[in-house]
Structures are given as structure tokens and as C-alpha cells.
């Protein structure tokens, strides 16, 4: 697998990884029509670090679900890495999620009673890699997030920050084009939040595109581009010319012992 940046697509799209045109999503909530997205158009280029913000109900979660190929738009087109995913079947979407996307969730969403390495290997189980290859890649991904020494720990033996790092390793293991993070720091204390953002910044520097949903302006400060949703539309979309460096922020924070639950 050549992964995110290989193949024909980025060249063919001049580095445009995501092209979204007039995206509409409407659901039926009982008898009531809910217009979650009312025509969203957007482009994301390779290597961007985007923060999506907005109040709850602004449509940002629905937008993330569609970006993540977990949901299909009612109208409009979504071209990801040269592929029009708005027309794909359930199984084809699963394939895209497996090859091109990595997810990080607010609640970590690790399999309990399953070791860190097994959690990280999970996406590879649905691909074609061999047992040995799987293990190597999982260990490499865990090393990237600084958990090389906790490979065989179980989620309940890891702190919240460490669990989120396992989840990031899982998102990375398949060399995705994009890592989608939905409120990744929502369950973490401020210091750990900054640490996690530090990891995202490091990954971004390595060329991985990151799209982050958050409602905390502090967290959005680490991204290079801010998109604000309101009422199912994009209210503002601007570059953050002076993103904060997580490594600098952390050195200013008072030192605390990292919690280590039993």
C-alpha cells in the first residue's frame, strides 16, 4: 500500500485532498426534517491542519461524519483524493475508511480488554497485511506517539492521555491521507490536551493532513486554518497565520505528575 500521498490523485488534483461542493444533509427526525447541512463547499489541500469549530447543532459533527465516510450526503459532491465518495456503496466506503482515513474520537473508542498493540492492529485486520507486517507497523505507530514502552498494556492500565495516543496510533497505522479528530481533547485535562495536540502537530509536520473538530478556542490555536460552522453553513474560513507551538506551551505549564490509574 502506497498510502496517502502515493498514486495518481494528489498530482491530478493539484494537491487538493478534499473537494466538497454544495453538500446538503437532511434527516428525518420523526416527522420533522432536520437540515443539518445547508450547502457547504470547501477545499482542503495536502498537509493542512484544519480546526472546525462551531456550537452544538451547527452541523460540524454531521460534516465530520460525511468527511469520515461514515455517512452519505443527501446532495452535493465530496471528492476525496480524487475519488467521488458520495456515490460509493457501503462496502466501498468501508474500504476508503480503511485505506485513506484515520479516526480519533473524544471517548477514545478503544476496544476494552484488548492490548494497545491489538487495538492499533485493528485497521490492519481488515486490510491485506501479514501477521508480521501488522505487528511491525503497529509498533512503529505506537513509537510515533511515544508509547513504545506500553505496547502490551490494556486500556484500563493507561491514563486518558495515553489511551488517546493509542487511538492516534490506530488512526495512523494504515498511513491514511487524513486523520479526522472529533473533539480529541474533550475528555482530557489541559496539560494532556496540549500534549495530544503536540502529537498532532508533529504528525502534521510529517505531512499528514489533520482535520480537527473542537469547540475550545485554545485547542484550535494549534491548527493552521480555522473553519467556523453555524446553522449548517460555513460562517468563516480563515488561515491561522501564527499557530501556537504545543512544545512551547507545555514548557510554560506548571509541572504535574501524570496520573497513572491502576
Amino acid at each position, binding site marked *: 500500500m502506497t498510502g496517502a500521498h502515493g498514486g495518481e490523485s494528489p498530482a491530478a488534483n493539484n494537491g487538493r485532498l478534499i473537494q466538497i461542493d454544495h453538500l446538503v444533509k437532511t434527516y428525518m427526525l420523526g416527522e420533522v426534517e432536520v437540515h443539518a447541512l445547508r450547502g457547504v463547499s470547501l477545499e482542503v489541500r495536502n498537509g493542512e491542519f484544519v480546526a472546525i469549530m462551531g456550537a452544538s447543532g451547527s452541523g460540524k459533527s454531521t460534516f465530520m461524519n460525511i468527511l469520515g465516510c*461514515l455517512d452519505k450526503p443527501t446532495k452535493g459532491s465530496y471528492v476525496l483524493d480524487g475519488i467521488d465518495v458520495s456515490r460509493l456503496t457501503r462496502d466501498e466506503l468501508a*474500504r476508503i475508511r480503511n485505506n485513506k482515513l484515520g479516526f480519533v474520537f473524544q471517548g477514545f473508542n*478503544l476496544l476494552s480488554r484488548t492490548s494497545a498493540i491489538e487495538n492499533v492492529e*485493528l*485497521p490492519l485486520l*481488515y*486490510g491485506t497485511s501479514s501477521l508480521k507486517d501488522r505487528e511491525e507497523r503497529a509498533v512503529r505507530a505506537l513509537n510515533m506517539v511515544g508509547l513504545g514502552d506500553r505496547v502490551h498494556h490494556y486500556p484500563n492500565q493507561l491514563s486518558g492521555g495515553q489511551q488517546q495516543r493509542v487511538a492516534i496510533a490506530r488512526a495512523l497505522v494504515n498511513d491514511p491521507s487524513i486523520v479526522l479528530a472529533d473533539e480529541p481533547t474533550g475528555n482530557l485535562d489541559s496539560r494532556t490536551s496540549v500534549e495530544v495536540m503536540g502529537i498532532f502537530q508533529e504528525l502534521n509536520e510529517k505531512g499528514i493532513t489533520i482535520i480537527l473538530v473542537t469547540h475550545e478556542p485554545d485547542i484550535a490555536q494549534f491548527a493552521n486554518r480555522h473553519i467556523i460552522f453555524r446553522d449548517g453553513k460555513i460562517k468563516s474560513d480563515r488561515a491561522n497565520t501564527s499557530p501556537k507551538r504545543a512544545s512551547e506551551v507545555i514548557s510554560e505549564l506548571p509541572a504535574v505528575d501524570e496520573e497513572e490509574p491502576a
Partner: protein
Amino acid sequence: MKILNILISAFRALQRNKMRSFLTMLGIIIGVAAVIAMLAIGQGAQYSVEQQISSLGTNVLIVYPGSQNTAGVRGGAGTTTTLTEDDCIAIQRECPAVGLLSPGTRAGGQIIAGNMNWATGIEGTGSDYLEIRKWGIEYGDFYTDADIKSASKVCVLGKTVADALFPDGSPVGQTVRIRNVPCKVLGVLTKKGQNAMGQDQDDVVLAPWTTVKRRLTWFPYLRQILVSATSPSNIPVAQAQITELLRMRHKIAPYDADDFSIRNQADLANAATATTQILTILLASIASVSLLVGGIGIMNIMLVSVTERTREIGIRMSVGARSRDILTQFLIEALVLSLLGGITGIILGVGGSGAISSLAKWPTIITFFSILLSFGFSIAIGIFFGFYPARKAAMLNPIDALRYE
């Protein structure tokens, strides 16, 4: 997702809930063990019935005199006096499908040996009797044609009689008094046990039929003629030949009934086998009900498991699992449950059958077929009862599954 990976994750998933997995399997274990044990008992019963019936000799025909009909009052089997020695000679000479033949007559009486005595039946037979009935001599000798011709005062004791009269020593060469006729004991028969009707076949004294006829009963006719067909498949032929011959000899008009009857062991064997077969099927069907209940248990637990693991399903889908991957995963889990249960059940069933054999002294037979049947049945149950929950899991919407609390 490769099958091996699915198998590994199925085992892991089942391991996480050891107690629950075990209890679920228990339903299948008990069901399969019950099916195996019941089939073993049924087939054991069938085998022992067949054994007992064939202990009479498999290709044996018995000719009985018919019922006496005096002015319309019929006297029941054996009341006529139509079978004679000449009939025997004629059958032997003119029926090619008949192999061996032994005329039979019977007397009852007290047998005395020293200060011991024993009441039993005395069977008068020909010299081929043992061969027809596939019986043997444990020690000593059987009487010969010469003994038959001269109506020698000799006899052979059944095991039960020998034990009753001579508890301490060998009866061979001793003299016993049968109805006050002193007879020399030539030998003792091997133990044959009970027949299909539960009678002790060893409680008998055999003597030349001529001796019984001339010295004990003075009854001139034969009680029966024991005949063996040249082969089991020739039984109907022999029966037809004997019928034709005896009707001719007894001068029976074309539309009149026979004055004799011929029974063969095959009919009895078939009837008894059919009965035990029905018994086996009955036992196995009752046992398979418990297997069915076990299957429903699997379905129940798999449904609970799918609900409990909705979030896990969502996570798996978000990292790229297709519907069919999820379907396979849960189907394999159900299959692993039912297969492990099935294999344990087979082991338990085989062990249980052995225990029944040795404790209750019931014969049990475990056939390859019954093991294969149970094995196949547990696979079928795993697939059948696992499919619905697995499909339910596979059809989940990834977003809903991920948000499930």
C-alpha cells in the same frame, strides 16, 4: 479479513466472557452428549437383541405340527400329531435348500444325580442339533448318529443343570436318572444365556430324540423339526420346499390349510430390530430437543453480545470493517461456541456411554455415524442460530453504533 484473524478474534471475544461462553456451550454440550449417549444405548440394545436372536441360529427354520381341528374345535399349535420320522427323512432327501435337520421331541421331569435333583425340560434332538443352533460343547462329547439309532441312554447337560446337579465336580461320565431312566452324561454345553424372551437357554438337558421317544414319553410323533437352510438367503426357498413336500405327504387338498406351521428366526429378528430402531429414534429425538434448546441459548447470548458490543462494532466499522466482516465475525463466534460445545459434548457422550455400560451393564455402541451426526448437527445449529444475531450486527449503521451508549 482473513479467516485465521477472525478465528483469533472470535476466541478472544469468547475468552473475555469465559463464564458466559461456558454456560452457553453447556446447552450444546448437554444436547450433544445426550444425543450420543441415547444413540449409543439404542444401538447397544439393538445389537444385543440381534445377538440374542442370532444365538438361536440365523438360518434356522422350525416346523411345528398344526392345530388339531375336531369338528370345528381347534386345539392350538402342536396339538396334531402329524410330524413323523418319515417326514424328516423326506425333507432331508427332497428339499435341496435344506442343510441340516434335527427331529425334536420333548419331555419334562425331575433329574436326579446322587443326592441332588433338578426339574427341567428334556429335549430330544438329532445329532446335528448343536450345529444347527450354533451351540457348542464346553467339555465332554455330544451324542452321535449311532446313539440316535440305538436310543442310547446318554444325555448332555446345559450349564445351568450341570451347575445345579454337580456343583463341585465334572458331570462327564457320571450317571443321572431322568424319570428313573439312568443316563450317562456325555458332556456339558457352553453357556448361552437368555434368549430374546428372557428364558434361560442353559436350563435344559439334551438327549437323543429316539431315547426320549422310546424310553421317556412313548409319544410316537415329533414335537418339532429343526431345519437349517443352506444359507440365510435360502430361508424362504427352504420354507417353500418344505411346505410343498409336507402338504403332499400329508395329502392336504389344494384349498385346505396346512396341518403344520413353519417359523423362521428372520421374522422374529426383523420385528425385534424394528422395535429397537424405533426406540433409538425416539431416544435420539428427545435428546435432540435439548440440542435445539442449546441452539436457542446460543442465539440468545449472541443477541445480547451484539447489543453489548454495539460500540465495538461501530469502532470496527469506522476502521474499515465491511458488513460481511462483521457478519463473519459474529457467525464464527457462534460457530466456535457450538463447535467447542459439540466436541466437548461428543467426548462427554462417549465417556457417559462408557459409564452407563460399566455401571448399569447396558450394552452401548458408539458408531462413527452418531459422532458425525452430532458434529454436523452442532455446526448446523451454530450457523442457523448464529446467523440472525450476526446479520443484526452487520446491518448496524456505523454512526449509530459508534454513538451507542
